[in-house]
């Protein structure tokens, strides 16, 4: 018996010379130069700066220097606001998307709601802060309405637009639509057959959700939540326009530091920015990993 070695297993594939020369990569050169100069290098500069002392030697002092009560509390409040707005955004956005796709509502709702979500998720920054000041601020529409018609004083109840909850409620305006936009395809991907199969096997509605639909959607939901977290953690404009500098959160602190070195040590600013990259980086890694997992079901 003769044995024929299969060519693509034993002998390495012959690569033509032209394919081995990286000439094709030259087409990417403009793009690579641009992102290197204006995205990667500036970021690397900050990251390296976070680990460099004033005389240029390597040090952990800057990162350790972040451990002051004021900076610690800035990170803590930022993380709390991002967590609150991300989880509430997820919850409400999911409820609305589920109502739209599975709730048996007229089809006419879908298009306008998705369009509106596209608009609202882009309506961030300074104007968003103005809109909420005009609504929930001291003489805003809702504040005045509640006071004169229902006798409810929001301020007496402990609500202040320039506070933790004020910022969270404002961020929800772009968080909820983003959730709707991202989760709707996942909800559309739930196959009718799965529900029918579950029902034939005797599952009730809640059982179907708990044991079939939710486990399938879970990575998508959690992943989107990580994205929303990063989204609000890096938001600068809304926070500054809303609160000025009265709320001690990381983006505002960093903004003030870049403007006028309020921390008294330029390298502490690098460390502060580095901390932001770490937090949003972790959140986005979670998003990417979980998205890959959730896409398994959408093939």
């Amino acid at each position: 018996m003769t044995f024929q070695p299969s060519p693509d297993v034993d002998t390495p594939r012959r690569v033509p010379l032209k394919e081995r020369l990286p000439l094709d990569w030259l087409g990417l050169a403009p793009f690579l130069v641009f992102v290197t100069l204006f995205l990667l290098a500036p970021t690397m500069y900050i990251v390296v700066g976070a680990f460099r002392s004033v005389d240029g030697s390597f040090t952990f002092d800057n990162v350790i220097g972040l451990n002051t009560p004021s900076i610690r509390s800035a990170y803590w409040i930022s993380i709390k606001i991002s967590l609150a707005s991300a989880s509430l955004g997820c919850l409400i956005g999911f409820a609305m998307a589920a109502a739209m796709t599975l709730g048996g509502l007229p089809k006419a709702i879908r298009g306008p709601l998705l369009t509106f979500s596209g608009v609202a998720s882009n309506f961030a920054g300074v104007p968003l802060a103005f809109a909420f000041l005009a609504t929930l601020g001291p003489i805003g529409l809702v504040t005045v309405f509640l006071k004169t018609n229902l006798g409810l004083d929001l301020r007496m109840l402990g609500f202040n637009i320039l506070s933790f909850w004020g910022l969270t409620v404002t961020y929800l305006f772009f968080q909820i639509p983003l959730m709707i936009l991202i989760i709707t395809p996942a909800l559309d991907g739930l196959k009718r057959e799965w529900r029918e199969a579950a029902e034939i096997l005797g599952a009730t509605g809640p059982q179907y959700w708990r044991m079939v639909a939710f486990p399938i959607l879970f990575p998508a939901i959690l992943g989107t939540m990580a994205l929303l977290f990063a989204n609000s953690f890096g938001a600068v404009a809304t926070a500054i326009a809303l609160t000025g500098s009265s709320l001690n959160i990381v983006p505002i602190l960093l903004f003030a530091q870049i403007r006028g070195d309020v921390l008294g040590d330029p390298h502490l600013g690098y460390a502060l920015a580095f901390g932001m990259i770490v937090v949003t980086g972790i959140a986005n890694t979670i998003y990417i990993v979980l998205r890959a997992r959730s896409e398994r079901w959408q093939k």
Partner: protein
Amino acid sequence: MMRLSAWAAIAFGMLYFLLPLLGMTEFSLKMRRGVYSFDAYAKVLADPRFQETFSYSVMMAVFTIVFGVLLVVPTAYWVRLKLPRARPFVEFVTLLPLVIPAIVVVFGYIRLFNTSSWLPLTGTAMGTNILLMFGYATLSLPYMYRAVDTGLRTIDVTTLTEAAQSLGAGWVTILGRLILPNVLVAVLSGAFVTLAIVIGEFTMAALLNRPAFGPYMQLLGANRAYEPAALAVIAFGITWACMGLIQLVARLAPKPATPVKD
């Protein structure tokens, strides 16, 4: 039961979204005591600072879009045609601006391109404008690249290129007269997102000290009561117009006869 809770969820959401829009609109009309009027709008529109900053931002948006198209279309085309292996890498890089907060990027710009560096862009007003445009181009990169790449998916890049080449077309002709018209709808939708982003952008413009619309709005918000609400209404109108134009363009687009699957 289920339909009821579905309606409840939608109604709650609508209430949450409509109230701030109603609030800002109502507030913007309240400048004159006792009656609704457009005084706040008249005041804003007549403000020379408004006109300056707004036209500055529109100009910046136009340049950003032109630069973005020139950068992204050839890159996305080349990746599809010659370097499909590089696609995950390029896609990852284009998504990075969503990961790295804009404030960190601009912080890096200020340190990397200051007057004592090898490329002193922040030394002159023109240089800073160019730097800001590059900054905006990075901010819009995720949206622009995705839009164009999705557009390229619907055409058969390889066949079109070979057909053009056998008729004697060079790369510039192929890109300008073949690829660009074919992905025009995608390019336009990326362009409108870019416009919406650039017009209201605050962080980069403020930290680079350029007279853009975002910092102007913030300044006005810190000093005035009714004008900011009017500005918010205008800004919302612009965002809405941009998104509406995207939908309109997508609807007017000729559907490809045979969509090519990825």
